[in-house]
């Protein structure tokens, strides 16, 4: 018996079985990013794969940025949510390769970012987009294309700070990387 086994049995949850991968994806679809609490770790593309391995759920996760301070929190949240749902002692593996890209953010994820007031990444990630050659960022409040960059970094490494020149609202842009 592994330490996490007891936690799951104490909760009285039904123990998950190897056929429950779909359920695991659903559980993780409700685990929100701590910095952007409207987008799930699945929609962000942080959860790369799920599999059963020797009676435990094996979860492959990838960090967004090398220094993202939320990496440990996200992993703890994933573990907690799975244990609460009856997945005993899930095994988490952190994988760096292939490197996370904003291209993995789902279309639902992008819509939610926009509704939350964060402009989603424009186009697909490549060297040109990293160098800022990716067209105009529209204001998530009024939709205007008349915006300007205030700073290449916003409240977190994954965002840049913009201002709308029409409605004057400052806003975050989720950088294309």
């Amino acid at each position, binding site marked *: 018996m592994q330490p996490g086994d007891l936690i799951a049995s104490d909760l009285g949850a039904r123990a998950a079985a190897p056929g429950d991968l779909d359920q695991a994806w659903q559980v993780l679809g409700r685990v929100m990013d701590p910095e952007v609490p409207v987008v799930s770790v699945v929609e962000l593309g942080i959860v790369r794969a799920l599999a059963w391995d020797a009676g435990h759920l094996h979860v492959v996760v990838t*960090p967004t*940025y*090398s*220094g*993202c*301070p939320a990496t440990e929190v996200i992993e703890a949240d994933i573990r907690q949510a799975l244990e609460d749902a009856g997945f005993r002692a899930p095994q988490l593996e952190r994988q*760096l*390769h*292939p*490197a*996370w*890209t904003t291209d993995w953010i789902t279309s639902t994820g992008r819509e939610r970012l926009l509704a939350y007031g964060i402009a989603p990444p424009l186009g697909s*990630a490549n*060297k040109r987009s*990293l*160098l*800022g050659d990716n067209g105009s960022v529209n204001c998530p409040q009024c939709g205007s294309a008349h915006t300007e960059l*205030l*700073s*290449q*970094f*916003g*409240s*977190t*490494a994954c965002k840049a*700070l913009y201002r709308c020149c029409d409605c004057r609202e400052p806003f975050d842009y989720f*950088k294309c*990387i």
Partner: protein
Amino acid sequence: MQASMSCRPKWGICKMNQDLIQYLLRLGDSALIQGQRLCEWCGRAPALEEELALMNVGLDLVGQARNWLEYAAELANDGRDADHLAFRRDERAYRNLLLVEQPNGDFAVTVLKQFFYDAWHLAVLEGLTHSSDSRLQGIAAKAVKEVTYHLRRSSEWVERLGDGTEESHQRMLAAIPQLWRFTVELSDSDAVEQRLHAAGLIGDPQQIAAAWQQQVERTFDSATLPLPAPACHFYLSGRQGLHSEHLGLLLAEMQFLPRAYPDATW
């Protein structure tokens, strides 16, 4: 001592591992020390937006340092982990570039230091994305995207300040001689790096030097800054652990807590 004895049967492979560990320390230590210097701006940057940017660049670098040092610790396999390498090694065991340990000075010095480092860092990482070692390749492929962005920001700042007001231009002119001699390490290499390159593990040191030189020439040109003659070797060498007087003071602050309270946890 034990490690070298256990390696005897496969001396060639072991030697390559020792080279790789040295190189990982160089990458990790440079990123860590540059990140730590950036953290010194916390609460003191000229504007809020700049503070956020400096801290975020620092955070990227500390994260990258952790990836390199974790790999170094695994290869060395001597019971030390990445935290131990960061917080329990003395100055002479650090292998970072002399450039990154230099004090922040004013904003011009900070910007120029970041630019020199970013231009070198990007060329190094681009070489590593073609490494025959999948772990090196994976860490570099992630970092190269972050550092492309760092270089974009720092080169724009060099242009803005160099080709800005009379005051900002003068500040940049004053910053160049403070940092220039340390750039000698950005365009040379040693036997360790040459062996690693020959084995397909890292990029070509000559190409890295050329890429650095071109980037600096280009940016200095658009920043209306004069390019000094290439820097010459002098008696210090970050690669060999022979540091300027500034690293010891930086480490004293950075390492105080884990040394004063060993095994402290959150």
